[in-house]
């Protein structure tokens, strides 16, 4: 009898040990998710549109869970990275063009991480000409010399700084009722800025590079189908955590900034206002959180990109290799970090605009990565009994359709706006639609939108959202 008890305890201990050993990939990914791009995109969303964009968080969380769960499942079942699988199943040419797109997008993301570093330290009047080169060199050595692993835990712990947003949101006494309503009430406007914002929000939460990173991390950690259940829990918890933080960033910014008049976030000082309940420490907390997030991501992102590319194209990779053994690996890595940092040093480089733009590009690339993921994960030969269920596929395909739809809508509006007005504008060249989409008593905000007839049709076809013509 006693022996049995001992066995149960031993068994229980084993379970805990397994859980702790698979912890990591999901939570790290979740935290890197709220990098400088994340912080600024959510801040901008709250500052400019108030509680309005909150509704996106539920579908985003759902999609985030679905994509990350798919990445980790593919990693656990096949034991191969995403770019490996794409190469094996779709050939070199497809892989090559996808990699080109990924490198370009990720390059902008690297720039945005360094922009995050620069802007966080500029709050303390540290010139970017000092901070960025130092951090670039630090990142390069930390990763190449392989001491990155030892500092990873520090980054992870420092991610607790996000708690400041939660505290701040409560201290700011936001209009919880309104926040709750707009969390579930979808509002769609055919306004370039708004659509751009939506794409950026999806792009920053579900960054394409993250799927590659997560799958490789799962493989590297040696997680197999046997201990996949624990890994799945971790991934889901991580996803929810990411978006809880996002929610509070938006609410804080909506209350602290937007409520006094909607505005664009132009620098870190603007965004730091969201933490104003902390008084004189607001800058310090914001700066520390942003710096940590940016530096953390600056370590992971270029490295993950280079691994993905080298895996996909079949080049030797790994920081344990010497330079002449893996020249492509080291060159690409050095170029990414070097140029990513150098661009920031361009005089008057618009830091925040760049950060937001990179997240939009993430959102544009995402559906294409998703398409490959869904095709791969439904291959019986690859996944055996672990293929997608119908519900999963539905969520994935609908998301692909929506993201492509949003991208096309954005593209068409942008193109139309660039065209000479006379040619394409409707007969009455005055604004066709005045979208007054938000009727809060305090600050009704108005956006004049030039909508072409085509966009008009799309709008009617989709038929969701709130329009007052």
């Amino acid at each position: 009898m006693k022996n049995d008890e001992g066995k149960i305890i031993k068994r229980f201990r084993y379970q805990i040990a397994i859980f702790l050993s698979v912890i990591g990939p999901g939570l790290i990914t979740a935290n890197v998710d709220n990098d400088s791009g994340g912080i600024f995109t959510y801040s901008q969303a709250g500052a400019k549109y108030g509680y309005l964009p909150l509704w996106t968080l539920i579908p985003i969380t759902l999609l985030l869970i679905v994509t990350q769960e798919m990445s980790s499942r593919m990693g656990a079942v096949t034991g191969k990275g995403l770019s490996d699988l794409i190469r094996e199943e779709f050939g070199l040419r497809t892989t090559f063009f996808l990699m080109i797109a990924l490198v370009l997008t990720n390059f902008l993301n690297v720039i945005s991480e360094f922009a995050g570093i620069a802007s966080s330290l500029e709050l303390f009047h540290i010139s970017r000409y000092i901070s960025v080169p130092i951090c670039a060199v630090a990142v390069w050595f930390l990763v190449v010399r392989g001491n990155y692993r030892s500092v990873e835990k520090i980054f992870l712990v420092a991610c607790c700084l996000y708690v400041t947003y939660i505290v701040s949101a409560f201290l700011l006494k936001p209009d919880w009722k309104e926040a709750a309503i707009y969390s579930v009430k979808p509002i769609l406007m055919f306004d370039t800025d708004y659509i751009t914002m939506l794409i950026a929000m999806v792009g920053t939460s579900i960054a394409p590079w993250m799927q590659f990173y997560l799958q490789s991390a799962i493989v590297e950690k040696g997680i197999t189908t046997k201990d996949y259940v624990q890994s799945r829990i971790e991934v889901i918890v991580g996803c929810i955590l990411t978006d809880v933080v996002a929610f509070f960033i938006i609410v804080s910014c909506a209350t602290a900034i937007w409520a006094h008049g909607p505005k664009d976030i132009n620098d870190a000082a603007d965004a730091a206002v969201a933490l104003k309940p902390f008084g004189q420490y607001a800058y310090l907390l914001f700066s520390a959180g942003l710096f940590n997030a940016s530096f953390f991501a600056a370590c992971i992102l270029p490295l993950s990109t280079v691994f993905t590319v080298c895996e996909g194209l079949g080049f030797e990779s790994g920081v344990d290799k010497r330079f002449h053994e893996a020249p492509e690996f080291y060159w690409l890595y050095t170029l990414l970090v070097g140029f990513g940092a150098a661009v920031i040093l361009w005089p008057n480089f618009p830091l925040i605009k760049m950060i937001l733009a990179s997240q939009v590009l993430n959102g544009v690339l995402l559906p294409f990565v998703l398409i490959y993921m869904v095709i791969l994960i439904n291959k019986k030969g690859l996944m055996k009994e672990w293929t997608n269920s119908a519900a999963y596929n539905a969520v994935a395909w609908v998301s692909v359709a929506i993201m492509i739809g949003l991208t096309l809508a954005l593209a068409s509006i942008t193109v139309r706006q660039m065209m000479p007005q006379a040619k394409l504008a409707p007969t009455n060249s005055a604004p066709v639609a005045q979208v007054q989409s938000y009727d809060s008593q305090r600050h009704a905000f108005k956006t004049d939108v030039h909508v072409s007839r085509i966009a008009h049709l799309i709008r009617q076809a989709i038929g969701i959202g709130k329009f007052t013509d």
Partner: protein
Amino acid sequence: MADDFLFLTELLGLKVYDLKGRRLGLVKDAAIVPLIHPSRVDRFLVGGGWAWLTVRYDQIRSITLDGIYLKDEQLTPYHSDEYMLRLVRDLLDQQIIDGQGRKVVRVTDITFKIQHEADGEVISILDVDIGLRSVLRRLAQGAIPRRLIRRVQVLIPPHSIRWEHCSIIEADPQRRLRLNISNKILERMHPADVADIVEDLSPDDREAIFETMDSEVAAETLSEMEPDVQASILESLETEKAADIVEEMSPHEAADVLAELEEQTSEDILEEMEVEPKAEVEELLEYKENSAGGLMNTEYVALPEDATVAGAIEALKQHEEILESLNTLFLVDANEQLKAAIPLARLFTAAGATPLRDLAPETLIQVDVDEREDRITELFDKYNLLTLPVIDTAGKLAGVITVDEIISLLREK
């Protein structure tokens, strides 16, 4: 054609002409049949019309960049053949093991050698191409004329592996047999290199390799791997095969691996093992992982107190298998109590009749089985030890801790 080689990317899409110069179709794939010939391209699969046709190697008059001309028109429709290794489907873009570079690589292209025979031309696989040059060739093929690509590509240094150094990775045991895939290349490598390669593979492929590898080589390879990988491999294997491999490992390594496994699995494996190694492993399993007992192994040579140098050398001849890592001899009394530790090198300068006791250093450094690991590393550092004897609660010699164990321990931190 001046050059006597052809790339797979060039072969694909090459037009095939019959005796009268009529176009039959385009090359879609090529296959070797390893059981018949390890490198000769045996079949060309030609697409055009309703179905693919199969062209046998001896039906070809000439192969050039301008097309393939046949000398025999008796073509058969293509049907899937288990014995065929289709180059595009099974090899291109897949991973293979590079036996010489000792790593896993991905096939970007394949280089063939064209052999001119009396009445025709035969191509066989010469190299597997990896690296930038072949990537360029793949990307440009179809967009730029073949001859131009050849001229441009020389700007980039080639990166290829001889076909005979390549080992195909295939998880399905049936197909391994049909495709005549062996682990010969792996078995010739150093176990540490094999371990690195196998760690790079997917779980299924790992399992396939261990399932078919000689148990002794498998045991050596497994010993070189990370504990969590060891555990996942053993768990994926049939219990019987796992037990065979564990038996071949040294008892203390076997105990380390089994301690990593889920209890039920490790019990099952122990059950399957032979009695002798099993008892020793079970004994070692009793000790805590991070204590002296968990670190020690039982590969030592202990001699009676009154042994001489000549007697010691005689005894060493009985233990050929552990000589490679042996550097210390131990003296025990009639009650198996440890009395002295003698550095092996001392034997060479002493006369044959010298009692070993006289060669022993003044102090005997030893630890109890439950000594903590940080204390042990400290001892190794302080006394510059190579081997540290471990005694059990009764003062008997239980095992030894060697310096390589300490190095692994420190590297993990």
